[in-house]
């Protein structure tokens, strides 16, 4: 089990609520598509990551749920 910092754990939690156990692998795939490492996602580059979540998640969940999840990720703020 990889240890993530708080921001990554928050993103993972949001994704896990909709995707379950596949959340971690899905997050890594979306980060790869965004051209960044999931560990390096920050408030500055999260938009690209969220955009890919919004685009690819409807293959597994409804469009509404995908958009809601992406927007939730966009609004996350690392304290």
């Amino acid at each position: 089990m990889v240890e993530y910092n708080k921001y990554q754990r928050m993103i993972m939690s949001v994704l896990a609520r909709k995707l379950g156990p596949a959340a971690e692998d899905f997050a890594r795939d979306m980060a790869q598509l965004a051209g960044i490492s999931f560990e390096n996602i920050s408030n500055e580059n999260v938009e690209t990551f969220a955009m890919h979540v919004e685009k690819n998640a409807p293959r597994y969940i409804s469009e509404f749920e995908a958009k809601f999840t992406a927007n939730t990720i966009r609004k996350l703020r690392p304290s």
Partner: protein
Amino acid sequence: MLAVSIIPLTLLGFASLQESNALSSDIALEAEGIGELAIEQSSSALTDLGIELVKTKAEDVAGQVKRYIKDHPEMTVADLQNDPEFQSIIVQPVGETGFTTGMDADSLVIIFHQNPGDVGIDLHSLQESNPNYYKLQQSGWGYIDTSGYYSWTDENGILRDKYGYYVVAEAPTADNVFIRVGSTVYLDEFLAPVMNTNAAIQKRLDEANSKISASTSEMSTANTILIITVLTILVVALVSVLFANSITAPLKRLAEVADKVSMGETDDTDIEIKNDDEIGDLADSFKRMIVSMKYYMEKAKKES
């Protein structure tokens, strides 16, 4: 099964109670009708009897007057007025409230009366104040018997119905006056027993009606309890069915989706269960598990 057995019983009970209510009301009405008919017929019979009594009395007194005058042809009206024996013949009680009187058959002036103050009254003076009575007296013109009803104000000032029968004694006095004997009585005297009976019947009817009302009220309460019981059973049954459906319907849908996924089919596996309880939590968990399976199955296909 419970509802199936209770509903017909309830309907039967309700119909029986309604029928019983209607029957009680009909009996009360019928009894009232019989009472009224009995009173009406009794009143009529007693009134007829009273009229016959008045008539008989008038004819009897007129006969006695005739005989007395024939036995005393020398006596004038004034003589007769001063004769206590004749007074006791011509003024006699009729029933309890009536009496006989004597008047001049031609002039309609009262010449014999139990109240001496009324002697000398000319009945023509009543033409305006008591036209019915005056008309009755006028109808005896020609010395024929006359009778009829009229209203009369009694000594207490109360207007009461009266019946009178008038017969002219067929013998003139020495001063050639034919005396018309009148026999009068208040009608309510004859009806007093009927009124008492009517009051007794009315009292019994009121008591019977009160009992019927009380019984009807009890039946209404029983009806209400029956209806409330049946409604409660129906509502409980409906709520039970809805509650059971709210549990079994989501579980059925979960079972269907689980069956599909177990066969490798991941299409049409959306689970729209919004229950805010353990079933809702179970559905959410199941949904996440299916999403993960979809994701990994797709990924495995890509990699292979």
